[in-house]
Every structure is written in structure tokens, then in C-alpha cells.
């Protein structure tokens, strides 16, 4: 049964097209091997693995459709990022920034977009742009505070 975000056609389409979808049932009175392997202590816990099964991102709890899609796209981006595929990571982070600007993960996407840009080009302006963008758009975000050291970089 597809309840919650899974009843949304955009979510269904994105998951079917971009991922292999997997469900694992949890039993808290008798934890499963997968619960132990991935340290699952609350549900829903939602993981993004690469095609070898390595976890690259997780989020916990029910979230609205817009946030849900943003997490999925950000998680895909983290797979590329962790595999040093910065151009593809930037594309995914851009999708979050442009298509889901009001979601909780959007400031994190801006941060990683800039870091991936810096690692791709070694141009410090990428990091300064992170600080400028976050300060302007998300002044209350923790990711804005994390970007504070980049304020010292000449724009």
C-alpha cells in the first residue's frame, strides 16, 4: 500500500524512475539483521544507498511531499558527491535549490553545491558564494553559520 508521500504521483514517478525501491519491515521487540546493520532505532527511517548497497544519506520521520522530493534529490547528489562526481552532484543539488527552495534541506544543498563547485574548480569564490547566498536566503540556518569561515574569502 502506498500511503503518505507515496500516494503522490510526483513521488511515485521519481522513485520508480530514479531508484530501485525497497521496503524493510521493522520489529522493535525482535530487531531484524538489517535494523542492526543500519542502526535503525525509529521509523520511518529512509535511506539512500548506491547500487552497491552503501548508505550515503538518511532522513527520519514523515515529511511533506515537497520536503520528501528534496531529500530524495539531495540523497542522489550525495552519492555523486561521495564518488567525486562533482558535476553530477551539482546538478542534483541545483534541482533541490531551484525546485524545492522552501524545504528544510535547501540550505544544505546550497552548502554542498558550493563545496562540490570548489572541489571541481579549486576556485575559492565558490565557497564565498555559499556564504553570500545562505546569508541572503536563509540567515537563520545552521548551514549559514557553517559557511561563516568563507566570509573571509575575497568575492
Amino acid at each position, binding site marked *: 500500500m502506498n500511503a503518505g508521500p507515496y500516494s503522490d504521483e510526483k513521488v*511515485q514517478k521519481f522513485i*520508480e524512475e530514479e*531508484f*530501485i525501491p*525497497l521496503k*524493510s519491515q521493522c520489529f522493535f521487540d525482535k530487531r531484524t539483521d538489517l535494523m542492526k546493520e543500519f542502526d535503525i532505532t525509529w521509523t520511518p527511517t529512509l535511506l*539512500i*544507498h548506491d547500487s552497491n548497497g552503501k548508505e550515503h544519506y538518511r532522513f527520519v520521520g514523515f515529511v511533506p511531499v515537497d520536503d520528501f522530493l528534496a531529500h530524495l534529490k539531495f540523497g542522489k547528489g550525495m552519492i555523486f558527491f561521495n564518488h567525486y562526481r562533482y558535476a553530477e552532484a551539482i546538478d542534483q543539488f541545483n534541482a533541490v535549490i531551484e525546485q524545492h527552495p522552501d524545504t528544510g534541506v535547501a540550505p544544505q544543498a546550497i552548502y554542498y553545491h558550493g563545496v562540490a563547485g570548489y572541489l571541481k574548480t579549486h576556485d575559492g569564490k565558490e565557497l564565498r558564494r555559499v556564504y553570500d547566498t545562505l546569508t541572503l536566503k536563509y540567515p537563520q540556518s545552521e548551514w549559514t553559520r557553517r559557511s561563516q569561515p568563507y566570509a573571509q574569502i575575497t568575492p
Partner: protein
Amino acid sequence: MGEIKWERDFSKTIEKAKEMGKPIYHDFWFDG
């Protein structure tokens, strides 16, 4: 689109993911 077609076995899902070159979206859920 209808319903999402879920896999239920982690090992088989990895094999399928490798074949198709796709990442895995993994929902740990509780029926309670």
C-alpha cells in the same frame, strides 16, 4: 502511475541495482 513496486529483499535489490545502475531508496517501516 499507480503504486510503487517495492522490492523486499536487500540482497536481491542490490543485484538489481547493479544491473540497472540505479541507487536504492530504502524505507524502514513499522506496522504498529
